[in-house]
Structures are given as structure tokens and as C-alpha cells.
């Protein structure tokens, strides 16, 4: 399946990027296509394209602060968690995303 994510943390220098790395590895390991936008102190990187968002089966927001541009995901299925969840249990989070997407089918 196709997943898009946004990661963002309070200070914007550490958890944002650790969560990015962990989600990316977990997503790829499970065989998914995954795109992750980071919103940190240096600003937005890997900004998701409208096409990536449109094609995504599910959106994972791993954020401790409000996600900028959240309206881009209106109408999508969204899992919202703190960065801690993505850092601690990335594989579980991806599994949960799979379950939610499968239920919808």
C-alpha cells in the first residue's frame, strides 16, 4: 500500500528525524511505498506532493505539535500519534495502518 507521513516535534531537531528514519525503515521493510515529510526547525523538507497525498491509502501524522498544512489531508484516513509512538514502535504503527486500510476494503 501507499503511505504518506508527516513528522514534527516540539524543538524540531531530534525526534522529527528519528521518527522519519524509523517509519521509513519499518514501511519499506513491510513492503510499502512510503513518503515522509519532516517539519522541523529547518522548515519543511521532503514536502509531500498532491499526487502522493491523493494516491495514499493512509496518512500517518507523528507529531507533538500541530501539523502545518493539515487541510491537505482532509477526507483521507488519518492515524494521528505523537512522535514517541513512531520512535518506540514503528513496526506496530505500520501494522496498525495495514489493519485500518484492510478494514476499509
Amino acid at each position, binding site marked *: 500500500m501507499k503511505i504518506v507521513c508527516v513528522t514534527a516535534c*516540539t*524543538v524540531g*531537531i*531530534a*525526534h*522529527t*528525524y*528519528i*521518527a*522519519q*528514519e*524509523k517509519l521509513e*525503515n519499518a514501511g519499506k521493510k513491510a513492503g510499502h511505498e512510503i513518503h515522509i515529510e*519532516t517539519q*522541523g*526547525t*529547518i522548515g519543511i*523538507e521532503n514536502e509531500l506532493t498532491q499526487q502522493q497525498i491523493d494516491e495514499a491509502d493512509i496518512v500517518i501524522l507523528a507529531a*507533538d505539535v500541530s501539523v502545518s498544512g493539515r487541510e491537505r489531508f482532509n477526507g483521507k484516513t488519518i492515524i494521528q500519534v505523537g512522535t*514517541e509512538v513512531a*520512535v*518506540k514502535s514503528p513496526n506496530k504503527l505500520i501494522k496498525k495502518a495495514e489493519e485500518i486500510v484492510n478494514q476499509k476494503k
Partner: protein
Amino acid sequence: MDVKEIIDINTIKTDLDVENKDEALRELAELLLENNYITDVDGFLNDIYAREAAGKTGIGNHIAIPHGNSEFVKKIGVAIGITRKDIPWETLDGRGVKLIILFAVGKNNDGAQSHLKLLSSFARKLGNEEVTAKLLQAENPESVKAVLTS
């Protein structure tokens, strides 16, 4: 620029002989002071503790990443400490900590974008289990640097 530009061998200590979080943070902050990254140990640690109070910085698997924005930071940098034994820390997996990576970032980062970018790629490496497993095994500052820049 490359990550190796923010990894300073002088701010890496692989034989930290400390009993707790406070001793570890203080020793790493002293290293940052000696090497001109920060201007004041106590002021800097206050800002680090402000972030500690906001949530766990122990990311699991014996690693902690204390950090925060501090006006006492002159230059963006990182101090890395490896302790001989697990020390108590607030962690996501409830285990103690052996590898402490202390980020020093200023409050005003105008003109520091490229360094912040390096710091973010460095943070990203810490989300990679292969990297952290090797770091935990590192026996001297040179090998810590080698793992992070490979």
C-alpha cells in the same frame, strides 16, 4: 557539507564514569564548554532540563538524546558520551541508558541553516538500528566518529 563537520572528536567521551543523568549531562556540558560550543554550563543545562521536563529523551535501546534551544550556545555542536554501565533515564522502553547524545543548539539560528541541516541528518542516523548498535560497541572517540560518518 557533511555530517563529519559537526562530529568533534574532542566532544566525544567513550569512558564516562558517571552514576546518573545529572552527572552525565554535566560532564558532557563541560566538554562543550571547553571546546567553545557553549558559554555557561549551568545556564545551558537549565535549558536542556526544560526539554527533559517536556517528554522522554530516552529513545529506547540504551540511547538518550537530550537537547534544547539555549542562548548559551555559541556554535551548534554535539557531545557524545558512552557510559560503562546503564544509568537511569526517562526512556520509551523503560531501560537505562548507555549512549548519550547531547545536542547544543542556539535560540537564534539565523545563518545556521546548514548546520541545523547537518544536525537533522545526524539525528536521522540515530533512528537506524544498525548505526546505534555499532555506536554502543564503540571503544574510542575515533570509532564513534567513524560509525557516524561512514
